[in-house]
C-alpha cells in the first residue's frame, strides 16, 4: 500500500510547489503530510504482509490439498489486517 500512498504525497507536494503557493501554504502542506507520514504504519510494522495468507478458509483448504501443505488457521476477534482488533 505504501507504494500507492507515496506518489500521492509526492504529487501533493509537487502540486503545491507548481502552483506557486506562499510559504505559509507550502508549510501547511508539508506539516500535514508529515503528520500523515507519522501516523502511517512503517514497513516493519507491516510484517503481517510478509506472510502468504490465503484469502479465506475454503481457499486455504483447496490450496492445502493441492500442495500437500498443512493449514495454519488463526481465529481472532476484530480485524487483524487493519489493527482494529
Amino acid at each position: 500500500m505504501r507504494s500507492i500512498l507515496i506518489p500521492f504525497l509526492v504529487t501533493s507536494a509537487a502540486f503545491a510547489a507548481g502552483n506557486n503557493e506562499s510559504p505559509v501554504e507550502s508549510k501547511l502542506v508539508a506539516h500535514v503530510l508529515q503528520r500523515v507520514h507519522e501516523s502511517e504504519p512503517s514497513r516493519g510494522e507491516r510484517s503481517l504482509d510478509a506472510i502468504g495468507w490465503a484469502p479465506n478458509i475454503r481457499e486455504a483448504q483447496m490450496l492445502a490439498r493441492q500442495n500437500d501443505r498443512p493449514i495454519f488457521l488463526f481465529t481472532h476477534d476484530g480485524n487483524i489486517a487493519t489493527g482494529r482488533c
Partner: protein
Amino acid sequence: MRAGPLSKIEVISILNRYFVPVFASNEVSGPNGSGPAEERAARTAITAAFEKSHLGTGDVRVYLIAPDGRPVASVDIGRAMDTPQLVAALKKAVQELGTPGGPPVVPPKPQSSAPGAGPAEVVLHVAARRLASGSWSEFPAENWILLNQHDIAAMLPPGELAVGTSWTVDAATSRKLLTDFYPPTEDTTSADRNRIEQQSLQVTVVSMSGGMAFARLSGKLRMERSFYPGRTDYKPLEATIIGFMDFDPTHRRIESFALATEKATYGSDGFVAALHALTGAGMTEKKPKDNDSEGHSKKPSK
C-alpha cells in the same frame, strides 16, 4: 499475535515454507458472522472436527490442520503468543506430516488494501497511532473511507468562490471523516461505540490558480470512547484538526486532500491520527527513500 509471533522472522519463515496460513475473524466466519454461509460452514466443520478429536477449541486460537482436513494440533492463545511454544508446535506438525518445504503457496501481499472505488469516488486511508509505549502502541490502526459523490458535494462550497470564502463541512460528512480518529483500542467488533459530543471542519479558500482552489481545513473533535467494547470505561478524546484540500470548483472534483490531528489525547495518552486521499489517476510514480524498514524510526511529535 500480530505484534508478537506473527512479526518474528522464524515464524514467518516456517509459515511461508511449510503451511497454508489463513486468519479468520470471528465477526466474519464465526457462527453468527457476516461472511458467506460456505465460509461459516467450513469454520464450523473445523471446530467440530477438533472437538471430536479432543484437541481443544476456542474463538481465539491457532488450529493446525493436515492437508486432508484431519486435525493435527490446537494451540490456545496463551501458548500461541509465546513464540518458542508456537514454533515448537509448528515444527512438530511439520515433522509428523513429513511436509517438504517450498516457496509460499500464496504470494505475500498487503493485507490492508484500498476498497474498490468508482471514477467519481475518493478513497481515503486513515491511520491512528498511540503515542506511548507498551501494549496497543506496537503499530497504528487503519481504516478505509470511501467518499461518494454526495460526500464530495457536501465538502465543496455551494456557490461563488473567491479567496477567503469559508464554509463548514456538513455534519454527517465531517463525522464520516473524523469518526476513525482514535488510537488503537480493543475492537472485537466493528460496531460504532463513539459518543461524539462535538465535531466540525471549517474550510477556507487560501488561493486560486489555473482553475484550481487550495483550501485550508481546521476542526475539532471531542468524544468519548470505551477502550473495551461492551464496557463502561468511557474515556474522553479531544483533538484539534488541520488539513488541506486542492479541488477543481468547476468540475467539483477533489484532487488532493489530507487531514491530521494537530494535538490529540485519549484519556491521558497522546495520539496522532491522519487521513489522506488516494487519487490514483495521473500520479507520478516516484518513490522517495523509505528509511523506516525496521519500523521504529518514526518519531511522532506528541
